[in-house]
């Protein structure tokens, strides 16, 4: 873009210098000349074109136009006229912030380049992150730059200014105050903000007749309900998996999409480390219907329909009580009744689990998932108490507020809207018209005055009387408390791009105040934080550190209400399942509850199990699919709750027979350009009465087939030694569980890497569960484009780091492993030998480097790559990058054009950045841990380590040379720099061979 000079008015105050005699004489021809850029005749279009002239001009334009098109785009670099403090162009700044997620909050450190947030990392100080993140957090930065975000307040679809919106809000607030809030309802998300909670409290004091309802499509409502049954109040169980010798999952995906997943992952993976000295490896039993990511790391897995799991849980509770010789309260024992009819194999498993649990002296964590009824949650509270796990592995803390949530609450709200009891609904975030239970969602849209606060005009925004554009988390001031109460300040990284406001700010206006987000947050912490001695200092410290020190809630003690638990179990038992077929609902692995539907990174991030992208399916067990006569991609009609939805089927090994896994969140109708026409809306199947599991469902073959966009089509290792496994017992006997490294001879002179650094990586397959955090982090760090559903169908996805999934064993009940795979930076790299133009070469430090501007795209390197980790730009994926998305791009990484090869660089830009700072400090060597790759930083399980193999004291060298380390395809003598550490499992010896 060429910039025209500013129109400068002639300054007549000084001396008049003339440029020519013509000017001096003020001749009209000079005035004319001044205006024109070219001499006469050159810029005027010819008048009265004849045929001949027309052809002349067209010919010339064609020729010259073609030439002009060859020019590289011109860019103007504008320097700061007044440089902002601390901003050095080219050097990133890091700020701590936090965001709510999954009913907890995670501390973040955000990298910004010249004021643009480009990459999200976890905050190492924050207990919920410890430096790691997950795929959704990683992708949040892309949401910030989503060009389809709403850009102004809207009244019935018409754009309005914030002044108009403010006037409306104030009037609405004043009216509501006059009516004591009668007819007003506020629907909030699981926001975790103490400021917002305090505001809502204040609101309820001002308007006692108003009501506040919390709703999350995949929240913690069942867990809360379970605690209410057991303790009479909503207490939150906080698990410490580091203390648990045995972990039992009862239908809980606690490492992937339920609860404090990042924190859980770290602690859990810490106990999966067979080399750990202070604490032995834990043992993990999973009881679940669908094969979850968490389930893949189980030592023993029971696959059983979700609707049958309660019976199993009851049996387990009894067995545990018997084996541990502890007494459950009599009311509970009586309600559990006699031994449930379990098949012998399951019964054996339950007995073994109970035996194992009993041995551990309370160092046991039993985690119950949201798909299980509240009675099971309550029962597990009782079991935890009985075996002495409370205080050891489970801590109970108070919730953020007492607001009730769940399908029943929003169902009641919907009824009140329909009956007219509620006429004004204030939706503070969320998209209930899309993801509320089927029986509630249409009613929400019918509210007389519906005010929607959101980053997008979604289904709710479209139905709303007023849509208020919400500022993104990275644009607003706020605060959050994690599950355990740890507080953190949410600070903006960039001014709101479209002038949006945060929930708290909007509520402030509604309540008649004028304070901005910053003041609201400060006010809230100034008052509430009893720990504060010097507020200014502590606030700055909290901002800097990303958390309020020692702000976690204290552990609560509460008495178990055994009679209520017993009654709940009896009630649960009485409600027998309606049929053999059940639907279990999970959040969509791409769109979550619909909120990320317009996020291209997440849409293209493969489902960890099925490797499906860009859409949703009905997952069936192989047996169920066979019974129906359907294969992958065949359409099926899934019916429940009086509704039928047609979905493509997907055969999911390891799923319980008769269970249909359906994800909710795709098929958005009012959505931006990315999420348009992606997937099927399955919300109609999900009624408030059967919110997480719909029993009595049915499924039929619909006829017809669609092509599924999957990144992996073959899930068997074909007996190849790709993922090596061993049992913990065997590992303890003799740690050399993998074939010892062999020395192969090379025809060529071997390159020496004994001087300087030798970069290398280790990937611990014991820790990795395949959650994709690394893959999305890599995408964010390295400007990796997305290719769309069609691109995935043609196997052209660009992920530098892909997550391979393999199944092993019985098709119906297999075990599964995941293996992150990226460029191994082979020392004898086969790609380098075959590139005719030497575009991929070796660095002295052992990196296999790609020189994009030398690459002509013969693709020979990729053909010769045994790992197939090279990615080719088949189209110009970045040419049409939208302006907003350009702001997300990492300036340290080249944006690749069409026709060149690309692949993992071991984050060479991070290595170089670290080297520059080391040099500035006068060091010629980097210290261990100074370079952290994007994947390594994101990994919640700390499965990835990176560093200098020449430094024998480095973590990576120790791991690589450890007994579990092995190289893939070692016999090719390509000498990969990435070492995989064999997966160690810890099966129960009693169940061996079962």
């Amino acid at each position: 873009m060429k910039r025209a000079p500013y129109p400068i008015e002639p300054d007549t105050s000084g001396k008049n210098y003339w440029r020519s005699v013509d000017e001096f004489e003020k001749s009209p021809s000079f005035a004319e000349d001044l205006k024109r850029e070219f001499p006469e005749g050159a810029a005027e279009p010819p008048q009265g074109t004849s045929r001949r002239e027309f052809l002349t001009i067209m010919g010339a334009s064609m020729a010259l136009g073609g030439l002009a098109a060859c020019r590289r785009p011109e860019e103007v670099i504008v320097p700061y006229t007044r440089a902002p403090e601390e901003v050095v162009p080219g050097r990133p700044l890091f700020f701590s912030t936090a965001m709510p997620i999954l009913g907890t909050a995670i501390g973040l450190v955000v990298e910004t380049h010249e004021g643009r947030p480009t990459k999200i990392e976890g905050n190492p100080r924050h207990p919920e992150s410890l430096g790691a993140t997950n795929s959704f957090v990683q992708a949040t930065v892309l949401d910030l730059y989503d060009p389809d975000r709403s850009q102004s307040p809207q009244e019935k679809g018409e754009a309005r200014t914030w002044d108009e919106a403010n006037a409306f809000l104030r009037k609405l607030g004043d009216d509501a105050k006059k009516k004591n809030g009668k007819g007003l309802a506020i629907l909030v998300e699981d926001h975790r903000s103490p400021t917002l909670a305090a505001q809502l409290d204040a609101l309820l004091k001002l308007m006692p007749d108003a009501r506040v309802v919390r709703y999350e499509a995949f929240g913690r409502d069942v867990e809360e309900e379970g605690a209410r049954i057991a303790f009479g109040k909503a207490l939150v169980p906080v698990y410490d998996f580091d203390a648990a010798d045995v972990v039992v999952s009862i239908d809980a995906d606690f490492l992937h999409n339920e609860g404090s997943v990042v924190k859980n992952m770290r602690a859990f993976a810490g106990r999966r480390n067979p080399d750990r000295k202070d604490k032995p490896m834990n043992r993990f039993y999973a009881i679940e219907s669908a094969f979850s990511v968490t389930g893949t790391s189980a030592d023993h897995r029971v696959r059983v329909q979700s609707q049958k799991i309660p019976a199993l849980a009851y049996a387990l509770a009894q067995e545990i009580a018997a084996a541990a010789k502890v007494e459950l309260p009599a009311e509970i024992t009586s309600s559990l009744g006699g031994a449930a009819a379990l098949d012998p194999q399951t019964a054996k498993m339950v007995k073994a689990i109970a035996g194992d649990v009993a041995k551990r002296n309370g160092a046991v964590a039993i985690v119950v998932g949201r798909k299980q009824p509240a009675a099971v949650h309550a029962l597990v509270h009782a079991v935890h108490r009985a075996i002495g796990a409370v205080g050891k592995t489970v801590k109970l803390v108070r919730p953020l507020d007492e607001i009730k949530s769940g399908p029943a609450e929003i169902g009641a709200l919907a009824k009140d809207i329909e009956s007219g009891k509620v006429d004004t609904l204030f939706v503070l975030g969320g998209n209930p018209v899309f993801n509320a239970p089927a029986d509630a969602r249409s009613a929400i849209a019918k509210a007389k005055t519906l005010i929607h606060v959101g980053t997008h005009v979604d289904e709710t925004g479209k139905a709303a009387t007023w849509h208020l554009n919400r500022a993104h988390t990275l644009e607003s001031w706020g605060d959050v408390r994690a599950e355990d109460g740890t507080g953190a300040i949410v600070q903006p990284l960039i001014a709101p791009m479209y002038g949006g406001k945060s929930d708290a700010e909007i509520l402030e206006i509604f309540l008649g105040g004028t304070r901005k987000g910053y003041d609201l947050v400060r006010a809230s912490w100034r008052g509430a934080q009893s720990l504060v001695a010097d507020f200014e200092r502590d606030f700055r410290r909290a901002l800097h550190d990303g958390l309020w020190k020692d702000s976690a809630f204290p552990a609560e003690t509460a008495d178990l209400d055994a009679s209520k638990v017993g009654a709940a179990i009896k009630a649960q038992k009485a409600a027998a399942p309606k049929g053999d077929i059940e639907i279990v609902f999970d959040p969509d692995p791409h769109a979550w509850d619909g909120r990320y539907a317009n996020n291209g990174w997440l849409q293209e991030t493969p489902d960890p199990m099925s490797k499906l992208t860009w859409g949703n399916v009905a997952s069936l067990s192989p047996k169920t699919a066979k019974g129906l006569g359907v294969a992958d991609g065949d359409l099926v009609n899934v019916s429940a709750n009086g509704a039928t939805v047609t979905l493509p089927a997907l055969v999911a090994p390891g799923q319980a027979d008769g269970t249909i896994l359906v994800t909710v969140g795709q098929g958005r109708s009012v959505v931006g350009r990315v999420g348009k026409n992606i997937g099927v809306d399955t919300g109609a199947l999900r009624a408030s009465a059967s919110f997480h599991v719909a029993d009595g469902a049915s499924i039929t073959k619909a006829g017809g087939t669609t092509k599924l966009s999957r990144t992996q089509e073959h899930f068997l290792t074909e007996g190849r030694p790709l993922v090596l496994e061993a049992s913990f017992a065997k590992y303890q006997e003799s740690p050399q569980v993998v074939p010892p490294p062999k020395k192969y001879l090379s025809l060529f002179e071997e390159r020496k890497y004994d001087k300087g650094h030798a970069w290398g990586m280790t990937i611990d397959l014991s820790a990795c569960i395949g959650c994709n955090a690394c893959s999305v982090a890599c995408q964010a760090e390295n400007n990796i484009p997305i290719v769309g559903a069609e691109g995935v169908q043609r196997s052209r996805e660009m992920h530098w780091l892909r997550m391979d999934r393999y199944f092993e064993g019985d098709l119906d009940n297999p075990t599964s492993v995941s293996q992150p795979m990226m460029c191994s930076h082979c020392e004898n790299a086969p790609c380098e030998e075959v590139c005719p133009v030497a575009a991929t070469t070796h660095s002295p430090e052992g990196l296999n480097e790609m020189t994009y501007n030398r690459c002509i795209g013969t693709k020979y390197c990729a053909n010769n790559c045994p790992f197939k980790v090279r990615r080719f730009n088949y189209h110009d994926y970045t040419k049409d990058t939208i302006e907003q998305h350009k702001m997300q791009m990492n300036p340290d990484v080249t944006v690749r054009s069409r026709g060149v090869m690309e692949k993992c660089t071991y984050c060479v830009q991070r290595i170089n950045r670290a080297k520059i700072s080391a040099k500035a400090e006068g060091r010629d060597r980097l210290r261990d841990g100074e370079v952290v790759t994007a994947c390594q930083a994101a990994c919640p399980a700390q499965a990835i380590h990176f560093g200098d193999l020449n430094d024998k004291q480095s973590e990576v060298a120790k791991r690589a040379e450890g007994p579990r380390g092995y190289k893939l395809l070692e016999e090719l003598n390509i000498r990969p720099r990435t070492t995989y550490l064999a997966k160690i499992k810890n099966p129960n010896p009693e169940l061996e061979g079962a």
Partner: protein
Amino acid sequence: MTTAALQEDTPGKRAPLVLGHRDFNAVTETVAGIVEKKTTPSWLVLLGLAVSVLLILLGSLGKLVAEGLGIWGLNNTVFWAWDITGFVFWIGIGHAGTLISAILFLFRQKWRTSINRAAEAMTIFAVMSAAIYPVFHVGRVWFAYWLFPIPNQMSMWPNFKSPLLWDVFAISTYATVSILFWYVGLVPDLATLRDRATTKVRSIVLGIFSLGWRGSHRNWLNYEKTYLILAGLSTPLVLSVHTIVSFDFAVSIMPGWHTTIFPPYFVAGAIFSGFAMVVSLMVLARKAYGLEGLITIKHLENMNKIILLTGTMVGYAYAIEYFIAWYGGNEYERFAFINRAFGPYKWAYWTMWSCNVFSPQLFWFKRIRTSIPAMFVISIFVNIGMWFERFVIIVTSLHRDYIPSSWTYFRPSLFDISTFLGSFGLFFTLFLLFLRFLPAVAISEVKGVMPQADPHAGHDDHGHDAHDDHHEEASAKADESEDEGDEGEEASDDAEKDEEESRG
């Protein structure tokens, strides 16, 4: 072998290479007539067809350059498919021309004379068709010249370790030598045309290109030497070009590619496919231009014998690959070969076997070997089979390699197909132009193998009426012809070996 066949090929007396009791003038008239006569409507129709197909190629390539390789069906597992298949296919076809013109020349196989010109032209056009792919299959065509070792401001040389670079040298050498060889052979005939020219322009243009040929002894002496030297230069190229092409695969580490058998296997396959293509083209050309007397059944039969031989060699190579895959004990290689025969691309694999190994076996029967329709059909089958051979090698090896998670299935896109189809447009356009504007049969060489050219064949009907400059060659032939004669019996053997044995 049937008794009839034995009787026909009586030892000591060989079948004449030119039929129809022609004299030298008749040969000139027949061949030059094609060039000098008015354009026939049928030729125009054929050219129109060929150019239409050529336009498909140009359109496809235009779109390819405008949009990128994404318009093809390639993916991030199979990075080469129809492009390199097409490349190897066309390069292979070219080989027959060089073999016929160079190796058969050195072995004094006289029967080559009537087909060598067209075969050489075919070589050049095939190399041109082949060259489309290495150029256009790269992601950034506009930088394809970086493949050449041109001194530049970056002081960057290409990577001399890369087989693709060897390819560049091999193909460019091959193209250069083939064009030179073809052109040198054309000079006497161009002079003939020049002398017969009726228009000024024609005589000037042909005058330039015939390099002042006067038909003098010195001209002939220099010509024969040059031709012999070029034949000597081309001969190793027949072996080296496809050897180097096979290195693209053999040097890699992909199971199914990394095999030492590839060089001889590729060369045999190339000759096989090239001869099949020559048969297909000659069958059509001799019919269209009435060249039955010059390109006789004998010629075609000889080529069919070579097809039978090389087809059997190719079949042997297919079999030995399996043996090595089993004997070598490399699990990845074993899998690659099992996957070829029984995996998702088994249809391609068995098409290859049927076309390349089974169908030429019919040439054991003389009746089929000498039947025009049968040989035409089989030659087409062989060409299809050889395309599939390259497809099988390239795609089935890549689509399931070391790490099963990246296994995929390649499907061609419309533009894969149109680009390949279009390359036939280029080939046939050039071939039709050649047939129309240049002598399709080497006039001077054919005259040299006619009985009239043999001074010792005076007892023959057509004696000494017009022999002039060919007596050296002709006498050489006469000397040898006494030693030959058992060729007909060993119909399966290749001509070269036969010749060698008889000399030794």
